[in-house]
């Protein structure tokens, strides 16, 4: 525990929050504490390999949305160009970003479940935002087919057979809105693709991206930490080993 290394016991921590004094802070938190592997003395009782209720947390990545491997490979190459592997660390593929995006497209994100999707639809002004009748899943499907078409048109090759510079040329055209799409602009698709890439690189690894928390490690972000109250006044930059929310024990 990073905090214990800095000389802060869990007991002190609980005391500073008022929890150990017997105050019911907000209701239910003490119940939560007991339920989350903390015994009466406030001592952590389990390590991080299993979650709070002893479920096995082995993670297997797989495709939930794409049906053709070829489509998944195009997505993978495109996001790797956006966030490439370099001397700082892994790129989008190494971070599992393509799986993150695939998995998200299969759920609420892909179906725009919590967004207003009723017609009538009009293109609107840029200041009015997303006005497509298409869901994100439909936009990605169309966008990937479009990337393959562009590759064939320009180079008579599949997208994944192009060299990096050729891929960048196509991505730049998409970004600049030079490629025709139906029901959505290519510029909008690019923004979606770029944003999803960053989300996959830096979301908690429970979403199947940010493999091994290496996105966070590169950036110096420690992920989920219980508290910084004892270090926030330090002048020196604090290097802290990141933790996933799946390790949540308090």
């Amino acid at each position, binding site marked *: 525990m990073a905090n214990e290394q800095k000389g802060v016991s869990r007991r002190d*921590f609980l005391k500073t*929050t*008022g929890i150990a*004094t017997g*105050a*019911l*802070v*907000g*209701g*239910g*938190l003490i*119940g*939560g504490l007991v339920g*989350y592997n903390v015994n009466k003395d406030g001592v952590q009782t389990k390590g991080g390999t299993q979650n709070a209720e002893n479920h096995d947390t082995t993670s297997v990545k797989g495709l939930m949305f794409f049906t053709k491997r070829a489509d998944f490979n195009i997505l993978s190459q495109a996001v790797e*160009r*956006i*966030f*490439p592997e*370099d001397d*700082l660390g892994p790129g989008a593929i190494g971070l599992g970003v393509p799986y993150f995006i695939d998995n998200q497209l299969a759920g*609420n*994100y892909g179906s*725009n*479940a919590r*967004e*207003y*999707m*009723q017609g009538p639809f009009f293109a*609107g*002004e840029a*200041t*009015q*935002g*997303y*006005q497509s009748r298409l869901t994100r899943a439909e936009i990605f499907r169309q966008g990937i087919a479009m990337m393959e078409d562009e590759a064939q048109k320009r180079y008579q090759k599949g997208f994944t057979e192009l060299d990096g510079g050729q891929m*960048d040329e196509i*991505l730049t055209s998409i*970004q600049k809105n030079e490629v025709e799409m139906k029901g959505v602009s290519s510029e909008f698709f690019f923004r979606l693709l*770029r944003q999803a890439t960053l*989300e996959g690189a*830096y*979301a*908690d690894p429970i979403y199947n991206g940010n493999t091994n928390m290496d*996105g*966070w490690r590169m*950036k*110096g*972000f420690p992920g*989920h*930490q219980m*508290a*910084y*109250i004892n270090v*926030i*006044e330090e*002048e020196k*930059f*604090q290097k802290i080993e990141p933790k996933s*929310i799946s390790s*949540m024990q308090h």
Partner: protein
Amino acid sequence: MAKTLDKVDVVTVGVGWMGGIIAAECAKAGLKVRGLERGKPRGTEDYLMVHDEYRYAIRYELMQDLSKETITFRNHRKMRALPMRQLGSFLLGEGLGGAGTHWNGHTFRFLPYDFQIKTMTEKKYGKNKLSKDYLLQDWGVTYDELEPYFDKYEKTTGISGENTNPFAGKRSSEFPTPPMKKTPILKKFENAATSLGYHPYMLPSANLSEVYENPDGQTIGACQYCGFCERFGCEYGAKTSPEITVVPTAMKTGNFDITFHANVVEVLKSGNKVTGVRYVDTQSGEEFIQPAEVVVLTSYVMNNAKLLMVSKIGEQYNPDTGRGTLGKNYGYQILPTVTGFFNEQMNVFMGAGALGMTIDDFNGDSFDHSDLDFIHGASISITQTGYRPIQINPVPPETPAWGSDFKKASIENYTRMLSIGGQGASMPHKENFMSLDPDYRDAYGVPLLQLTYNFTEQDRNMHKYLTDRIAEIMKEMGAKTVVPGNPISDYDIVPYQTTHNTGGTIMGTDPANSVVNTYLQHWDAENLFVVGAGNFPHNGGYNPTGTIGALAYRTAEAILKYSKNGGSLV
């Protein structure tokens, strides 16, 4: 057919800060209160695994489900209004606690100038400082009259702060808890602002510096500076929110209950009184009528206005004639911002929502506007809220938006970038208003609220002037590269700006130019109260929650008086 329920003394539409305050005060005084909340119950126990940027900050777990209801938007009357299909510019709340669950906790008192803005501006600068298109008006209540209620709200919420701001209104007591920790990042700002002759003070915070028990016996925890605050709930119960204060206070009286998944679609009016509300149970689809002696609209700014419009209570504002008051004086906030890139790495990922330092040297009428082409100004703050990696990818100008150079620069600068921002006042303009949309409907068949809004000349001038002042502070802080925000042009509903929407149901002393009187009692229905930032005739240079908290406490007192005596309170 809607099923009619037993009558209650008071019904609140929505249970966030406003609903919670009204419920607590009325229930303590013995009135039977029912809260109708369209979202679900939630509380501290739901936030144990809240340190998840993707779920909460990016996919908006705690915010309004727009598939059920949104608003439509256009910049001006000649543009076709279209639905806000995704959240962006502002984040509407839903569920117990409302936006009070995922707020940051900046808790200011509007300046004495704000409440008498028309009188004071005209006195000092004459009648023509702003053109007649700006619908400036006094609020009808002064800072001094509101002071006891500011005090009460701050004591309920335990605000952490220091009474050293020379521009603030007079306080009857000190802050309930001491200020938060002054971190190295805050000190950089403090030193720079001081050396420029300004007056920095610790931002009044609802993330508490120490454990606090409020006068109602509710305990608020001590902030742990975990860096997950705005857009999140607090797993420590250390960010004051309705669920841990006013809601349990109301509950423990035995006089308050909440019906969840209850979406109010109409306020029922008969003669000069309202009789109750009609709501849809969002789970069963059944309709109910909840009769009440007093109806209090305590949902967000937009929905309060919409409910009055669909219920045909009050006269819709017409920008052509200037007639009507409902929907007028929509206000937002003007946000001058400057980014600075530094050589040294800083602990930017640590923080709390309201951890910051502020100056008011350029807020309200703290500075002379004689030679300036705008009025009012902004509180200028540095905040250390905890940078999270999906949202914060800072790159210096001219860096590509993707690829190798982007990756390197965004990683390098994540821990080396600070920004200073202003919460700028928003002056009401005759073309900025709310109405009902003729085309789009919500999931219950009710028209959506339509927002017509754009930045105006006053906003652009203020933004430019303040951006220059902020850039000077950033330079003084030692940034190697200072990047002032672009000048504002048209309001864009896509990027997040602020959830400080105001107006539409404004307060005042005359039914000709306000929807409610200064007790937030509707001019056309004496047992209907409308509470929230919708009451602001203009938006001030601060976050609004402290001021609406004060107005809500004043209104709670008025409702108790009305319950005994009836009639108009003015």
